[in-house]
């Protein structure tokens, strides 16, 4: 079932055309990733979906209703996790959860139950009484997410929720997102410029650049459709020059160079590539010390689409 449809969404800020008439949709129960470098238009897009910004053009349909005309249609069912920590640092974790729970219309025992459940999910139940300003960055991030979960929303929008935190908290957040999606059936829109997060979490990915969606699909679909390169780094004990000459004869190989005592190969996607390399090197009297194969990923898809790396 289609939960949300974005049609021709457009937004300008004075001289900057931040979002240029984009279209996409999300099915119920999906995790949709919006991937792109800083300034691609991801945050502006989700700000419009969250009713924070009014689009200059286009429409956003949530459960068959335009949220431009009726923002309340989405507000009650939306959990919004902003990129920044949007909490009251002088209040305790519990006071923050209670306040935001009330803001979402919860009260009484329902509110208390929600606070208890959410603090367990985000793993801060032992620090609830402490002021938020005393929390670590990771804990604040988790509470930032927790606030958006209190009213058990149908759709959660997470805007780069793992920026600037330690690996342990990051893993906890990613696991929480998966738990919410799989066990609670929540639909998630997840924006990030960390392609490994998007690869790990998302069923479907929209790659954004300069206000446009430049590719959309599952990870495999994106890789296949955009024909990115495979990178292989080989280390051999001797006779690198002969090996380079031989490797260049493989049809799918585009570039072979020697760098830092490694042979670096860039090749088109080719299922026979690994077998062919082993065969060619085996013909020489050398020993392979190491081999590192970098399969095409979203980074290389982005590189292939834009000529730039994702984290520029």
């Amino acid at each position, binding site marked *: 079932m289609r939960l949300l449809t974005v049609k021709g969404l457009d937004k300008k800020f004075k001289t900057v055309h931040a979002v240029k008439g984009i279209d996409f949709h999300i099915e119920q129960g999906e995790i949709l990733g919006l991937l792109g470098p800083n300034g691609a238009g991801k945050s502006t897009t989700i*700000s419009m979906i*969250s*009713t*924070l*910004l*009014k689009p200059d053009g286009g429409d956003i349909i949530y459960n068959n209703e335009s949220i431009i005309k009726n*923002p*309340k249609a989405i*507000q*009650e069912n*939306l959990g*919004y996790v*902003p990129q*920044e*920590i*949007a*909490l*009251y*640092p*002088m*209040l305790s974790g519990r*006071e923050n959860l209670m*306040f*935001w729970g*009330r*803001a*979402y*219309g919860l009260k009484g025992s329902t509110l208390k139950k929600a606070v208890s459940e959410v603090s367990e999910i985000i793993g801060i139940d032992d620090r609830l009484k402490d*002021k938020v300003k005393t929390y670590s960055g990771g804990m604040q991030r988790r509470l930032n997410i927790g*606030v958006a979960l209190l009213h058990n929303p149908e759709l959660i929008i997470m805007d780069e929720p793992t920026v600037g935190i330690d690996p342990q908290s990051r893993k906890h957040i990613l696991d929480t997102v998966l738990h919410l999606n799989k066990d609670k059936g929540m639909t998630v829109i997840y924006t990030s410029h960390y392609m490994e997060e998007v690869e790990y979490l998302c069923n479907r990915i929209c790659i954004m650049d300069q206000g446009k969606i430049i590719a959309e699909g599952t990870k495999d679909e994106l890789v296949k459709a955009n024909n990115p390169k495979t990178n292989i780094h080989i280390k051999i004990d001797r006779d690198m020059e002969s090996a380079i000459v031989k490797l260049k004869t493989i049809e799918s190989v585009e570039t072979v160079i020697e760098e830092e005592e490694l042979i670096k190969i860039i090749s088109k996607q080719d299922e026979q590539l690994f077998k062919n390399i082993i065969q060619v090197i085996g013909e020489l009297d050398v020993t392979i010390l190491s081999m590192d194969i970098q399969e095409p990923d979203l980074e290389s898809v982005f590189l292939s689409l834009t000529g730039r790396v994702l984290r520029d």
Partner: protein
Amino acid sequence: MRLGQLIIKDIKNIVYDVKSLAILIVMPVVIMSILGVALKGVFGNESGSGITSMNIAVVKQYDAAKEIENFQSEAEGNALINQGDVLVEDINLDRIFFEEFLENKEIQEIITYTVVDETKAKELIETDEIAAIVYLPEGFVYDGLVNFTSLGRNKVKINIVTHQDYAFSNQILISILEGFSEKLNIEKARNSAFIGDLISKGVNEHIGDIVANLPENMINNTETILEHKSANRQKSITSFQYYATAMMSMFLLYSAAFGGKAILSEKHEYTLARLSVTGISIEKVVISNFVRVSLICILQSSFMIIYSNVVLGIEWGSLITIIIGTLIMSITVGALAMLLSVITLATGSFSFASFFEFAIIQFMALVGGSFLPLEVLPEAIGNLSFLSISGLGIKIYTNAMYELPLSANIGTYTLLLSYAVVLVLIAFIMIKVNGKKVKAC
């Protein structure tokens, strides 16, 4: 979400923030204490310096010519007068008071006087044209002559009736007249010693008889006395009391500056965006801020009044006037904070709130009389005092100290509440007009 929850959150935020709370509440109390102690000395010693002129009326309740004539007829045998050692004109208090005292160049810089009858004087003080009435009583000249020419100590009583709005000027006037009175008493003492000396040396063999023959009421044991009353009022206030109201009224305005920055701060901390996503309107947020600032003002005022009363011994007077005044002041300051917060949000910058803090508050404090009482300021500045919320606060609190009836403040209460309504209306109109700019994101 109920507005109440938003207000509770806002109050918790400020109560937990010890630093902000200290700035808003403890600082005014500290400054009030320091100023109070410092000004106590200043007011006692520096009367008149650098102060602009005050108008007073002098009511002569005596007939100088007749009293001189009386004195001369009764003192025919007075050796000092007869021998020309003392000229009546030299010791005529009427001449001394007006020509030597009030016409003195230095005194003229401070006091401008007009001699009028009692009815006219009362009319002038009612219409705020003069700061005080000085009554020179019947017998003023006669008693003065007796005192200077004999061992007699007749009471020369100068009454002063002061206008409540000129507390500072009147402090100065009283100090000056006290100086005059003291000078007369010294002269009298010196004169008595001189007469005594004459008697002991037998310079004039009749002088003992003259003194002995003077009427009894001429040699009573009194001196020149200064009596002070407030015009139509039971009480007058000290400069220490005045500055307690002045400081408190001024510091309430800083709460408006604090509130004026609060919503833009919330925007910068991204909680405003989050509130917006939950469906809470910007109107609710600014109303909550209005209530928060009003409550801070009530807290500030209560703390300052109790502290200054208990620790500094300042009497604040009529409780009901203070309670109603504090509530109305707090509402008006809350409304001011509301408008400031909307302007700050619309401009997306703290500049206006800072401008308010560093310029407008100072302007209001100046024209409202927080730095110097209005009567010592040029009239043009004093005429702007109705624009100053702090000035209106001073008026309410000093009226409470004078223990004036509640009705005396109705005009000020109404003006403050009108300001509050206008400020709130402008804030809401700005939200409507600036729609896009006054947003969470």
